[in-house]
């Protein structure tokens, strides 16, 4: 959304730092040539790129500790990185800093089927945990779209969600314990092997802290029994309003679906072209509603959902006939981003969350903004929890287009705040939405965030410059404050 991080003043003695790192690690684990550093120049938010001073690939906790101590002593910033799938620039390197890759921490340390927990290193991929637990009939519930690639350490840092978090919660609800290192290199354990731990809930605080408070070196997650049956229904609607009403009906009937997803026409067509999921391409909106649980429960709820959806004017209602069709229905949704990527040179993915009931008006306003900027927007969202992913289609090679996309994106986020929502539901603030933090929070609240950061990292060396803007930056951004849906000067034109 915003200008990339300011280039750091050319301070640190690169040669001296690299030499010192080489004393801690094997030579092949310290990278410093531009061509070796290139793979680390950006994460999933590719609009921003920055080569770090050096990148390190330790594979023991003692090595990570030594790296942190060295950087702390030399006042060198450190940016931790898992698989680099962040969509908000959380792992964007600093020109004056060390990029700390945790990719080599990829061992599953222990699966305990009786207590239903898995203890893993931070670089283990999300999906690999479920695969390892599979023989025991267990799985790890949070399933971000990037689950094939993203790592559990990054999931904790970002408090990752996924299509099933309506029923099974976010990462924070599924992690029991984290071992982390402070910037000083001290190892601390947050949470426990039990369901809670004494003192403050530092584990909850660490989830979603975007690598600003500590470096995660081990994670213990909860495993759940695989539901006996999962069934997905697909419903098509002539208007977004009808689809939105169906969502509210399902929830107020006391049903908590495992997933409840919506796509608009542009997203439907793109997905259908790409994966041939069998979506009705003339629908203005489709809903995918997954029900899981015991066999009896799922049968009962499918009938209930069918009646509720019919009452909302659905033009079509399909139940996946078999597992292959269920996976095909989901494939279209899970591939929605790359599908949109096929019909446009570039796209920009947003991540606001709103109260569900404001959905029709927010989508209407997004359509107006889309027309105003002359930029198409495809909408894909986790309808069950009001988390929107508008995708702005653009061409980065057209001069000035990225800037207009960022401006449009910023206005969409401010719209989310204005209706009582938030600028980010699951992708994180990173560098991307840092200006919009000035819109969502008061100066005093931002000061409190900075105070919390200092409590963990007094020197301010862990992933500095991300997530929480400085007062000066907010002043420059010139944000007007939106609170409780009211602008202080509603008559004024907003930028």
């Amino acid at each position, binding site marked *: 959304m915003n200008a990339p991080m300011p280039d750091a003043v050319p301070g640190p003695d690169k040669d001296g730092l690299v030499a010192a790192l080489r004393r801690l690690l094997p030579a092949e684990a310290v990278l410093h040539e531009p061509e070796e550093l290139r793979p680390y120049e950006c994460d999933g938010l590719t609009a921003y790129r920055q080569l770090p001073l050096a990148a390190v690939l330790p594979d023991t906790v003692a090595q990570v500790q030594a790296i942190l101590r060295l950087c702390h002593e030399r006042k060198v910033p450190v940016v931790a990185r898992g698989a680099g799938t962040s969509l908000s620039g959380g792992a964007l390197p600093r020109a004056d800093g060390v990029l700390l890759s945790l990719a080599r921490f990829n061992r599953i340390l222990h699966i305990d*089927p009786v207590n239903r927990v898995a203890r893993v290193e931070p670089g283990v991929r999300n999906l690999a945990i479920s695969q390892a637990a599979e023989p025991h009939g267990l799985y790890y519930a949070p399933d971000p779209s990037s689950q094939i690639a993203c790592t559990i350490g990054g999931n904790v840092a970002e408090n990752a969600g996924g299509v099933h978090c309506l029923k099974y919660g976010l990462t924070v609800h599924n992690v029991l314990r984290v071992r982390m290192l402070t910037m000083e290199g001290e190892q601390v354990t947050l949470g426990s092997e039990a369901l809670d731990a004494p*003192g*403050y*809930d530092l584990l*909850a605080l660490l989830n*979603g802290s975007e690598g600003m408070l500590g470096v995660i070196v081990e994670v213990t997650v909860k495993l759940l029994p695989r539901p006996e049956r999962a069934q997905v229904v697909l419903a098509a609607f002539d208007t977004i309003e009808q689809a939105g009403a169906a969502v509210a009906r399902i929830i107020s009937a006391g049903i908590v679906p495992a997933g409840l997803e919506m796509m608009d026409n542009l997203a439907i067509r793109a997905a259908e072209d790409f994966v041939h999921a069998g979506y009705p391409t003339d629908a203005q909106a489709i809903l995918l509603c997954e029900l899981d649980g*015991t066999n009896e429960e799922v049968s009962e709820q499918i009938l209930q959902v069918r009646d509720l959806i019919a009452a909302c004017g659905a033009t079509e209602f399909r139940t996946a006939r078999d597992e292959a069709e269920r996976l095909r229905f989901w494939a279209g949704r899970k591939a929605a981003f790359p599908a949109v990527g096929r019909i446009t040179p570039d796209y920009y993915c947003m991540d606001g969350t709103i109260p*569900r009931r404001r959905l029709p008006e927010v989508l209407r306003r997004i359509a107006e903004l889309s027309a105003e900027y002359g930029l198409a927007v495809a909408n894909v969202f986790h309808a069950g929890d009001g988390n929107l992913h508008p995708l702005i289609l653009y061409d980065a090679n057209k001069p000035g287009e990225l800037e207009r996309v960022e401006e449009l994106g910023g206005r969409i986020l401010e719209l989310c705040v204005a209706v009582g*929502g938030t600028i980010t539901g699951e992708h994180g603030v990173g560098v991307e939405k840092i200006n919009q933090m000035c819109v969502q929070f008061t100066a005093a609240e931002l000061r409190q965030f900075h105070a*919390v950061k200092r409590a963990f990292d007094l020197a301010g060396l862990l992933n500095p410059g991300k997530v929480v803007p400085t007062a000066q930056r907010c002043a420059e951004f010139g944000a007007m404050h939106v609170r409780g849906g009211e602008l202080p000067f509603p008559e004024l034109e907003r930028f």
Partner: protein
Amino acid sequence: MPLAADMSTELRETVAAARTAGRRLTIVGGGSKGFYGRAAQGEPLHVGGHRGILNYEPTELVLTARGGTPLAEVEAVLAAQGQMLAFEPPHFGPGATLGGAVACGLSGPRRPYAGAVRDFVLGVKVLTGRGEILRFGGQVMKNVAGYDLSRLMAGALGTLGVLLEVSLKVLPRPAAEVTLVQEHADAREAIALMNQWAAKPLPLSAACFDGHLLHVRVSGAVSAVQAARNRIGGERVEQGAAWWERLREHAPPFFAGERPLWRLSLPAACPPLDLSGKWLVDWGGAQRWLRSEEPAEKIRAAAAAAGGHATLFRGGDRTGEVFHPLAPGVMALHRRLKAAFDPDSILNPGRMYREY
């Protein structure tokens, strides 16, 4: 007392004045959980008058209320819409408030299957020890803007701030709920059984063993509950809901008397610990109540060795440490976090640990 009143201005002024004068405050809602934590110090700061439900949208599954709102009022409003606080907070007295329930961070029998109070906190408005009123989180299900300072308030015992407002995720009440009871002679066997059930896709919502009887509750669609009943077996308890409510409120005779009451939070399948006293196993094995005169060090060492921790929940010496001692690195983070919210340590000083 009026049904709704906004006292945030008065409360802020009181906190600001206390800070200036170097006076310490002990936060009092309904006074139902005054026994919990270390002995209170300081002048009472009454927050019970700051009450009222501010927003409740059943289709959003979100409720926002002021901290002093009676828990009973919140539960009644939810029940009228067929919804509930799924973490089943204990009241421990008629005056229990929402703010107190969140600040104490206690959850009832449904916790291992539905989540703890912290899992349902979506946002807070908090009055810090600096006298600042700040909002964190919000009223939406997913929100990762900034650090999650709202969940941090759950269980912080008011030591980081006074909870002026809390937004919680609420859930629909299950369509059906049945409590079953079976006899078991051996705790080891009962704990193993509860964990075997939990590893299967059964709609469990509570499981408790009192040394003789194993109570288990299943919740969900009518057909699912019926099917689970057949698979689990046991006699149906007629007043099942009341049975769990009594357990949640510590009404059974197990909890009566003066002997120290310890709460051990353990990995669910952990075998019985070798500590003398009477045991009651809740949360499918993950929360164990112990009436025991054993030395605190011995109880804590046993809990820690098993991967958990122990709290002196009621009775015993409330001027010593009642919560499990923290590792030095974790304690250092606690001290600095406390200072970040309440630099002069005026809010509930010493309530959690002696040090702050």
